């Protein structure tokens, strides 16, 4: 992306962060047991959630933290957010921080959204005056102005998500720590989040994103960090981090790195050089011109490129595959052409699944969100596609005559 993060000041500096959790074999959680068995509580296993994690994040950077469930990435985020305390090491940050471990946390269902927004603003580190001043813009962003005095328990879940997201956007912190927030909503919500995050980046804000969604990491983060079993395994290029994550996930423990084993672990390793839709947006009924160029980093044996077109709700509308015999490392693959366009007006996304030897049952390894585009036109309809329907409506004459 050509983002020269090195020249920007460091806003998050972590050095040697460690964290262990004690997991008692026999949990003593009453005073009575503590009194009756004063020495019973001494046995516990120690789970080392984080070992010696050090990294820097620069101002205006979008930094991904990826890793499997239980790898320690959420623990790290919670230490950065002052929810947990680290056992050793230190973290320093510059500027006001807004952690979003979960959307809408701390909302009180018995209060109106007006009261909740002010409360949440204060929780984000604003003072009461500032929080009240931001109230209007939050309600406007959420498009909930008419419902400002309605208690939150009467909100629909969609309204709740909108409000929570608006609070997050308008908190306007220097550093945002976000944990899997994109996973709660539908695809259009995720898209809205990403649009907003991009605007934040332009305003010089820093974002740390913990996620499972490698497509987001690849298309969105400047750099990323891979954590596995509490250890920092990789830090740097976002695509490389995502790739290593895939390898870890599909290969099982211990297979990270190293050369691909023939016939064993599938190893797809490509980079998106270019992906575009002709004219960016497409008129309804006109064919979609697409051009994508991948670069193979390793030799690929019989790779399959599966293109999926998704609607705004994340539902696949249609797709097609293109396969090649063999691609050598360093070679580029160009997939381009015209596609019939049955799509109704709306927003669509293109994902590409790159797998090897689909017929032999290998897993799809590499999911890339390539593109998003809008189909515009004046003939909306139900669903996502328009098809030619050779169907006629007539009145059955003879039956109508017979009826008394």
């Amino acid at each position: 992306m050509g983002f020269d993060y090195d020249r920007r000041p460091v806003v998050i500096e972590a050095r040697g962060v460690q964290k262990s959790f004690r997991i008692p074999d026999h949990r003593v959680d009453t005073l009575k047991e503590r009194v009756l068995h004063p020495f019973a509580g001494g046995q516990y296993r120690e789970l080392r959630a984080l070992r010696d994690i050090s990294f820097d994040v620069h101002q205006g950077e979008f930094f991904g933290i990826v890793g499997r469930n239980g790898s320690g990435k959420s623990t790290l985020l919670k230490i950065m957010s002052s929810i947990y305390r680290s056992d050793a090491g230190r973290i320093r940050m510059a500027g006001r921080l807004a952690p979003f471990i979960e959307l809408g946390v701390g909302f009180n269902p018995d209060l109106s959204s007006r009261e909740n927004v002010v409360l949440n603003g204060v929780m984000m580190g604003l003072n009461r005056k500032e929080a009240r001043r931001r109230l209007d813009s939050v309600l406007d962003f959420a498009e909930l102005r008419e419902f400002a005095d309605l208690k939150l328990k009467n909100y629909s879940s969609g309204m709740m998500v909108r409000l929570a997201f608006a609070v997050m956007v308008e908190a306007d912190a220097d550093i945002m720590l976000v944990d899997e927030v994109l996973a709660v909503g539908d695809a259009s919500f995720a898209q809205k989040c990403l649009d907003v995050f991009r605007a934040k980046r332009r305003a010089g804000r820093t974002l740390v994103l913990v996620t499972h969604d490698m497509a987001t990491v690849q298309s969105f983060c400047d750099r990323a960090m891979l954590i596995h079993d509490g250890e920092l395994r990789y830090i740097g290029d976002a695509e490389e981090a995502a790739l290593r994550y895939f390898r870890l996930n599909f290969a099982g423990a211990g297979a990270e790195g190293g050369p691909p084993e023939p016939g064993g672990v599938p190893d797809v390793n490509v980079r998106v050089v270019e992906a575009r839709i002709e004219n960016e947006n497409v008129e309804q009924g006109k064919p979609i011109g697409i051009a994508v160029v991948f670069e193979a980093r390793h030799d690929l044996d019989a790779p399959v490129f599966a293109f999926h077109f998704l609607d705004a709700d994340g539902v696949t509308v249609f797709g097609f595959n293109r396969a090649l015999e063999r691609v050598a490392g360093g070679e580029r693959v160009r997939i381009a052409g015209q596609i019939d366009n049955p799509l109704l007006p709306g927003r669509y996304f293109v994902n590409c699944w790159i797998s090897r030897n689909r017929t032999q049952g290998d897993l799809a390894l590499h999911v890339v969100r390539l593109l998003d585009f809008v189909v515009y036109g004046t003939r909306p309809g139900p669903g996502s596609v328009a098809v030619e329907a050779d169907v006629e409506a007539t009145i059955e004459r003879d039956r109508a005559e017979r009826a008394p």
Partner: protein
Amino acid sequence: MTVLELQEVRGPSALGGGWRRSLDLLLLIAVNEFRRSYLGTALGYLWSLARPLLLFAVLLTVFTQAFDLGERVQQYPLLLLLNIVLFGFFQEATTQAVSSIVNQEAIVRKTQFPRLVIPLAVVLTSVFNLGLNLVVVFAFILAFGVGPMWTWLLLPVLLLALFAFTTAVAATLAALFPRFRDTAIIWSVAATALFYATPVLYPLDILPDPLRELLALNPLAPLFELARKWVIDPDAPWPVAFDSLAWLVPAAIFAVVCLLAAWIFRREAPRIAEEL
């Protein structure tokens, strides 16, 4: 873009994020909670008043009809009402504080929230309730012909001491509950015992001597005794003889409870999120 200075992330604590933010949060939460319980229901305030008044009616009947406290103690009904309202505040605040942090689990585990604010907000909400109840108490006092006295102005001092003690107990219980889940049961029994061991139903001076001296050690006792003397009956005896240094014992217990609370809460606060 302005360059901001790097600052150490210190992890969760009792008042993380600064005094200012903690105070803002405290006020917002307590006011919201208070409004919710009173403005939400038409009879909200009446209900909260009904409880102490009902208890008052029952106890008054028992202790003036079955026992003869009505004759032995000046203005006994007024004393009983004042004491019930004061102790009711202590009991309500501490009992609700026990599980307060666990009830706010989502906030504690998922946001950067100053831990001490949670039990403090419970206490502050009870302070608002107490304020409203005291209006009624003083209406009764005036209606019973006890005129305004300059010593009424000393009541806020007693109330502040009561708030401090209540806060200390509330914070201790709230910090211990995530680790020791029987704290709630133990405290409900202990609070009831304390109700009888504190001069709520009776003034200390009508008790026989060894018992009187024992109960005078209760740090709440001087507060209730002084409230009686300053608000209702200026002729009532001083709670303790100031020349004997006996007053040092409840004062010391008071101080120890407060210091212990501060120590326990500071120790537990960083780890509370992990215990839940």
